[in-house]
């Protein structure tokens, strides 16, 4: 017996096998993406941070939407050409489908990489700045920033992302719990930096610490542990035997009515410790540098303290924490988090902004950002008056500024985005603060903001080259930092998860469609209807992937 209904549909169900299967598979896919979108709803409803809106540029998303729809159309054309037995045309349409899919992925790649290279920092007072991290350089092992770093870079120094924490380390303690294989990266980083500073890490007897040294130390530890574990276990078993025998004896002697319970005997049971090899059971190796060494670590790799730091694998570096910075060019300042927090505390967000480290801290950039904020506030108030004067808006007060009701969305009030920063620079100038408050200047600003949005693609390549304001944040002011990856907040987390899975579906679909279009001639020659069935099924999947995007686009790009 052979399997039926591969090509012909079964009469009573009206389906051939794979068509039924793909609908079932799509049902499970609906549940998969349904689960993810419910997750999105849940996360957004319960978010305790200002949920980013319009954080992803709309235009490329729109282009992608159009392209996916087109590819869904061409895949149907391909199928119908196959039904008409035009193999060449079928291949051409399949080619178009694959082209659109590839272009979609291309745009996606650009979107992803812009986000990944974009840094965000939440400071201790909840002010958030976004931008691009500068590079630091090493001067005799010590981190230097800004102009000094640039000079060293020109001389060929290594570029280091300026978001490290620096220690002047004298002593390192390596615990031996984890295998060296998974710690190589961390330990090698320390050893490499020491070597560059002509220092060595040595143990008490003066032997140099290497990975192999640690491996051997760990092996010795675990050999001793093994031996001791067996000795302890056997010792305890014997001790229990003795204790139970004694207990039985006591009953026999009439000193005791019934058998003791385990927990009653337990305190009497002792292991004979003398047989153990405790000397080798040292759980860590402590080593000293021949001279103090500057070591820098990623913020996420170390738990900080003034006098020491603990690395991810438990390694402890002892020494003074140095003053280190996050050196950035800022392309957005976001007070929404601060406003969110102030609202919960019932305090005035504008006062808190004035008092924040960014605007009034003891650093040379404070004045600069204060100016930006003042300009922004002017624009906001101007806008607000416009709303009141022209449209007589009286509802939906979002917040109040010095007793004045504001109607703009909080995002417009508390976030200065890169378009605004550029606009303020262009029209007010860095130096000249006495700008004209009349409508014409205001409209200029608005026009420039709009123009920037409309020409996203040009700006994508230009924006990084613009000189954005510079900011050096001492690492103790940094509360939480991340590039715009899933880590930064749950908006990006769910965005990357859903679009990432969708992207995987696109890639999977491309492989299948390519196979049907360009590697299935044999099946076509054998039975063209069979191939048509396959393409139909593949096309159904492709439509589904398109449909998912139809949900993704408004939810992540527009809402």
């Amino acid at each position, binding site marked *: *017996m*052979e*399997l039926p*209904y591969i090509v012909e549909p*079964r009469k009573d*169900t009206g*389906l*051939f*096998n794979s068509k*039924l*299967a793909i609908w*079932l*598979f799509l049902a*499970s*896919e609906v*549940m*998969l993406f*349904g*689960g*993810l979108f*419910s*997750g999105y709803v849940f*996360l957004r409803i*319960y*978010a*305790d*941070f200002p949920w980013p809106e319009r954080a992803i540029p709309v235009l490329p998303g729109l282009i992608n939407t159009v392209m996916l729809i087109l590819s869904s159309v061409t895949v149907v054309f391909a199928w119908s050409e196959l039904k008409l037995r035009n193999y060449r045309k079928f291949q051409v349409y399949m080619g178009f489908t694959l082209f659109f899919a590839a272009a979609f992925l291309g745009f996606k790649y650009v979107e992803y990489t812009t986000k990944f290279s974009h840094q965000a920092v939440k400071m201790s007072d909840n002010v958030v700045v976004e931008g691009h991290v500068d590079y630091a350089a090493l001067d005799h092992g010590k981190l230097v920033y800004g102009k000094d770093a640039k000079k060293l870079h020109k001389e060929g120094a290594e570029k280091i992302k300026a978001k490290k924490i620096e220690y002047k380390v004298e002593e390192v303690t390596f615990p031996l*719990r*984890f*295998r060296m294989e*998974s*710690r190589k*990266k961390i330990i090698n980083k320390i050893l490499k930096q020491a070597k560059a500073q002509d220092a060595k890490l040595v143990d008490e007897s003066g032997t140099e610490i290497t990975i192999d040294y640690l491996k051997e130390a760990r092996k010795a530890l675990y050999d001793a*542990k*093994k031996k*001791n*574990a067996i000795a302890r*276990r056997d*010792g*305890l*078993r014997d001790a*229990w035997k003795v204790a139970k025998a004694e207990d039985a004896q006591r009953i026999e002697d009439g000193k005791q009515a019934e058998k003791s319970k*385990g*927990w009653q005997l337990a305190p009497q049971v002792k*292991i004979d410790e003398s047989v153990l090899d405790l000397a080798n059971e040292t759980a860590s190796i402590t080593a000293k540098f021949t001279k103090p060494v500057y070591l820098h670590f990623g913020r*996420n790799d170390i*738990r900080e303290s003034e006098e020491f730091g603990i690395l991810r*694998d*438990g390694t402890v570096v002892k020494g003074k924490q140095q003053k280190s910075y996050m050196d950035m060019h800022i392309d957005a300042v976001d007070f929404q988090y601060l406003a969110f927090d102030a609202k919960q505390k019932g305090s005035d967000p504008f006062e808190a902004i004035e008092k924040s480290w960014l605007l009034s801290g003891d650093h040379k950039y404070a004045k600069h950002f204060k100016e930006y904020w003042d300009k922004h506030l002017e624009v906001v108030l101007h806008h607000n008056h416009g709303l009141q004067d022209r449209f007589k808006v009286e509802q939906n007060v979002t917040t109040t500024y010095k007793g004045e009701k504001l109607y703009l969305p909080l995002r417009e009030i508390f976030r200065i985005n890169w378009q605004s920063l550029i606009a303020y620079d262009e029209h007010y100038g860095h130096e000249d603060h006495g700008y004209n408050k009349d409508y014409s200047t205001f409209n200029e600003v608005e026009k420039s903001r709009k123009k920037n949005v409309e020409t996203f693609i040009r700006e994508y390549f230009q924006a990084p080259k613009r000189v954005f304001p510079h900011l050096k944040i001492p690492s103790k002011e940094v509360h*939480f930092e*991340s590039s715009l990856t*899933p*880590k930064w*907040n*749950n908006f*990006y*987390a769910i965005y*990357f*998860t859903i679009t990432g*899975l969708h992207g995987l579906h696109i890639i999977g679909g491309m492989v299948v469609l390519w196979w049907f279009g360009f590697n299935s001639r044999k099946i076509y020659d054998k039975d063209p209807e069979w191939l048509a069935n396959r393409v139909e099924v593949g096309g159904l999947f492709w439509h589904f992937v398109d449909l998912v995007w139809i949900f993704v686009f408004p939810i992540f790009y527009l809402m």
Partner: protein
Amino acid sequence: MADGHHKQGFVSKYIFSTDHKVIGVQYGITAMLFLLFGFFLMIGMRWSIAFPHEPLPAWFTWILPDGWEARWLQDGKVTGETYNMFGAMHGTIMVFLGVVPLGFGAFGNYVTPLQIGAADMAFPKLNMASYWLYLVGGLVMCFGFFEWFSDTGTAKSGWTNYPPLANIADMQAPDQWRTGQTQWLLGLVVLITSSLLGSVNVITTIVNLRAKGLTWFRLPFLVWAMLVVAFILLLAFPPLEVAGIMQVMDRLTGSSFFTPTGLYTSQVGLMDSAGSGSPLLFQHLFWFLGHPEVYVLLLPAIACVTEIIPTFTRKPLWGYRSMVYGVIVLGFLSFIVWAHHMYLTGMGPVISTFFQTTTVLISIPSVILITSLLISLWGGSIHFRMPMLWACAFLPMFGIGGLTGLPLAFNLADLHLHDTYYVIGHFHYVVAPGILFGLFAGIYYWYPKITGKYMSDLLGHLHFWPSLIAINVLFFPMLIQGMAGFHRRWYNGGDAYLDKVAGGETENVFAATVYQFIDLNILMSWAAFILALCQIPFIINVFGAWFFGKKVESDNPWNATTLEWNTETPLFAKHGNFDEEPKVYRGPYEYSRPDHDKDYLPQWEAPQSKPSND
């Protein structure tokens, strides 16, 4: 597929086989090995519960490598962390890698296509992929037992893997890929993919490959059950896959889907994460699968019993149609009861009431199934062969399991019973003496078809009777302890409370209660050890009977009526199953028809005279 009858090599015939029967047997053997391993972990746990101060006995530790003992045991005793590892992996293995693959994987694969008269599954290659993905996923989940794969042992946050506990567990490890907790999630995602492929395959096969004349209401009940199970797997598993993917993201990319704001732990300090995540979201996604999963476990077992009871009572199944409708309703309802696992999360009384209502509703179809089976026994001429013994034991055992669930369904009663040994007792009654007994019945029943040999009755009895007694001694005291308030996750069985008791007199009421019931631990643990011994005759039986068993006399040794008995025996790797296309003339359980000489009338037997007018 359309490949010819060419000769196959050993590897493609028995290992990377696309034949549903071989795959079914592969599923069965793998699942039983996993069950054995899960059982082994449980023995370690039970030792720790009953004898927390004594080192594990030599008959347990001989299998452990020394390094393992040095890393995970303390003076040969089970530590809390190790107990958690065992507990999490016991649950995972038993549910995901043991019972589901045995019920749905093995019986679903071997029996279903035969009962509908199909040559194979609709997609044989996909079927093979399902099995291998299952094996890979299962092994990945167990990687943590080997130091070479994992720095931190296996997953240790319970089989439910609740965050934020599961999110922060092993967070101190330098390489997140090399932690049992992450590997558990990755294994889970692979495993779910396997189930999805399998369920698509089973549904397509049942809908499209039924033999001529096999209309929907002529399908054996097992096929209906498998259809419902496949739909549950198809639709309920993806949300868990979502939860798995999100948790992997949390662990590997530092997102905070399930990490609340300001989470602080002694191991890592203040979590370096954005926060704002929702641990409750995970619970919803988990139990959206988790509860339907119970029926994925149950239905194959009940299906096996349903096939066996008519055969050994020589009497049609009572209420076939109501059972079919019952199982469909059960499948639907199973999707809207999940939050009864979450009464204590503070969802609010409205939602609790809704889920309480649906939970009580779902007992109706369950009772229909069990009652129909019970009434089917009435007035039958019962042959107590091995499969029938197991099937008969299934009914009361599953009954206890079901009835003890009622107090848990009501959220008021659940306030007291939540997370106690009562819950453990309840679901173990459902799964072990209930479902596993049903599946054992299935193994004894179809074994002659697979191998052409009967399993030994003597060994069967040695397996059955002690198991039945031991398993009740093991699980019934759990209900008592649970009502007394014993918490389900005590690694030392409540021993820590005894310090407060001086000679049984104490003002600490709870300590006094623990003092009163703690000795049951020893009884239960001995029952567990004996239960392990009782499985030895079965293991000997399964492998021994293959070589030394009594040969079957005909292709239909039990004189049953469904299509799988219309094939040659032994039926293992035969391509295409049936020599000629089978035709079906009647329903599946035509036993003892008054108008027929023999006491059974198979589905495939052509009517001799012209059909009567009924």
